[in-house]
């Protein structure tokens, strides 16, 4: 039997990384993710974890080292936050294009300006098109579990893609919660050693990421697209196996709460789903039929699952803890993807987005009440009065 520990998201990540027996860790400090490297470096120093720990001179180098290590066949872990994530931006496409299953923790932090440690998802979401698997965890337990699940999916020979393992800075990274730590034998059963398909090896020379002619481009891009699409069934398999081995059953892509008879739903990713659940309980006491749809993977985006899920409701409120200035509909990054997913469905809900939690401000129970009220009005009138609301700025 495993043990129960009271850990932050960073503590949970480090424990999972250790149990995944990673070979190479690359670090560069930036709040709030730094703690994970404090723990891992101590584990390496104590001899608890046999891994190369390389401290880089910046995030670009940090990710470049991870790229090389992974290309040579090492299970590799790295991480960053906020502007650290964006500083390494150039490296993300070469890593996924080289089909190197590096795992990177992103503990979200608001991008500058001004300097702000609070969690906003724009740092990670800004990298959503780089061919990395990406999703959010809500609790330290989910962080622990996702760390193992992401390695398993990313290293699967049918996928071979790097992964952004994201959670909210401070809310999840720094506030501890109960985490069940499994037996090492369970982790070993779930996550076999990484077997690279074509590692860089002096005994068997080959090249990765060469310069190509334009006519070779489409095929390479199609391969990366196919790999991302192939991740869908692999994620489902991994989640099934995870439930069998560890006894915790996740919905692979979309977790629903109180949706059976719901007419309105909050659509959300990450930490604020916690507060949303309590808001829903209180709203239901007042007779408002509201539920929650929490998305666990942003890449690959589960279009089919969302079509089936969201078409059952009258109105969907997309909670956006990110910003994309000038995007379609003028709000955050998720709502246009939700709208795009539902365009082909004859029975579509009405969709509005709610900009909240920006700069890392907590989204309060009252703000969820506001969202529900607006959704109720939208459902009753059968039309949206406007596509985007800014929480705290509206009547």
């Amino acid at each position: 039997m495993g043990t129960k520990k009271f850990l932050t998201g960073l503590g949970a990540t480090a424990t999972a990384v250790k149990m995944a027996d990673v070979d190479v860790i690359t670090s560069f400090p930036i709040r709030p993710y730094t703690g994970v490297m404090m723990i891992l470096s101590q584990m390496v120093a104590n001899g608890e974890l046999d891994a190369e720990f390389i401290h880089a001179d910046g995030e670009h180098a940090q990710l470049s080292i991870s790229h090389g290590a992974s290309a040579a066949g090492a299970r590799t872990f790295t991480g960053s936050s906020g502007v650290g994530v964006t500083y390494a931006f150039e490296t993300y496409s070469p890593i996924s294009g080289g089909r190197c299953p590096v795992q990177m923790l992103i503990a979200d932090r608001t991008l500058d300006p001004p300097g702000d440690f609070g969690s906003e998802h724009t740092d990670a979401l800004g990298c959503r098109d780089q061919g990395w698997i990406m999703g959010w965890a809500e609790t330290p337990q989910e962080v622990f579990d996702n760390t193992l699940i992401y390695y398993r999916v990313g290293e699967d020979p049918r996928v071979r893609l790097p992964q952004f393992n994201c959670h909210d800075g401070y809310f999840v990274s720094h506030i501890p919660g109960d985490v069940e730590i499994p037996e090492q034998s369970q982790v070993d059963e779930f996550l076999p050693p990484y077997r690279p398909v074509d590692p860089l090896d002096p005994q068997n020379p080959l090249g990765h990421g060469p310069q190509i002619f334009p006519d070779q481009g489409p095929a390479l891009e199609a391969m990366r697209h196919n790999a991302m699409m192939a991740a869908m069934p692999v994620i489902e398999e991994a989640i099934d196996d995870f439930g069998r081995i560890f006894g915790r059953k996740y919905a692979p892509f979309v977790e629903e709460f109180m949706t059976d008879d719901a007419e309105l739903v909050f659509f959300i990713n990450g930490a604020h789903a916690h507060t949303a659940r309590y808001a829903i309980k209180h709203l239901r006491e007042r007779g408002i039929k509201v539920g929650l749809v929490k998305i666990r993977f942003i890449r690959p985006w589960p279009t089919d699952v969302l079509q089936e899920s969201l078409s059952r409701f009258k109105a969907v409120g997309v909670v956006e803890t990110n910003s994309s200035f000038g995007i379609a509909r003028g709000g955050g990054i998720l709502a246009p993807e939700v709208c795009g997913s539902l365009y082909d469905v004859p029975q579509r809900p009405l969709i509005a987005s709610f900009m909240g939690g920006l700069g890392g401000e907590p989204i309060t129970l009252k703000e969820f009440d506001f969202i529900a009220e607006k959704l109720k009005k939208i459902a009753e009138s059968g039309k949206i009065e406007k596509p985007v609301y800014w929480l705290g700025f509206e009547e």
Partner: protein
Amino acid sequence: MGKVQEITVWASGVVQDKEARDVAQCLAAAAAKEGKFIQAFDNYVDLPDRVNVPVRKYARISDSEIEEKYLYENHNPEIVILVEPTLVKGVDVLQGMKGDGCLILNTGRSPEEILKFIPDKTPLKKIACVDAMKICPKAVIDFSGSEGAVEAAGVGVGIGAVLAGAAAKVSGCVTIDSLMSEVGNPEAAKRGFDEVTIKEL
């Protein structure tokens, strides 16, 4: 939503960082042992801390699940503990306290003497002093538990245990038995519980 009892611990940055965190963590762990719902975390905005700059650590205890758990501060602390007693002179440590509050200081001075430094005593029900360094002359300076990382030097082995014991006596937020089972130095916690000087207001 049930009431959340808020505990705020003040200390000097870096040098008392760990002991202050230990007070919050030990009280929260003891409450968890009693079946309560708890949180314990550092003030995120104080960090990264600097030597002797005031820093805050928080514990939150509730009979029911904590619904809004992503707050950055304890806005209405009922129990305030000063690992660094001189902060009482320069910082409004009772800010947000709504009445029936407890203030506990790590000092050899008497509660009466300390009261002179508190301009508005209305939110206070009790003030208490305990000379933690005399009881357990060990203040651990360690950074492993900061920034959401994992504590490596043992929790509640130094003066933090004494102050947590004193807080248990003064406020009754946890029993001394459950506290003693959660600290590295139970004897220090017990002496803090037994030797704290309390003045009711």
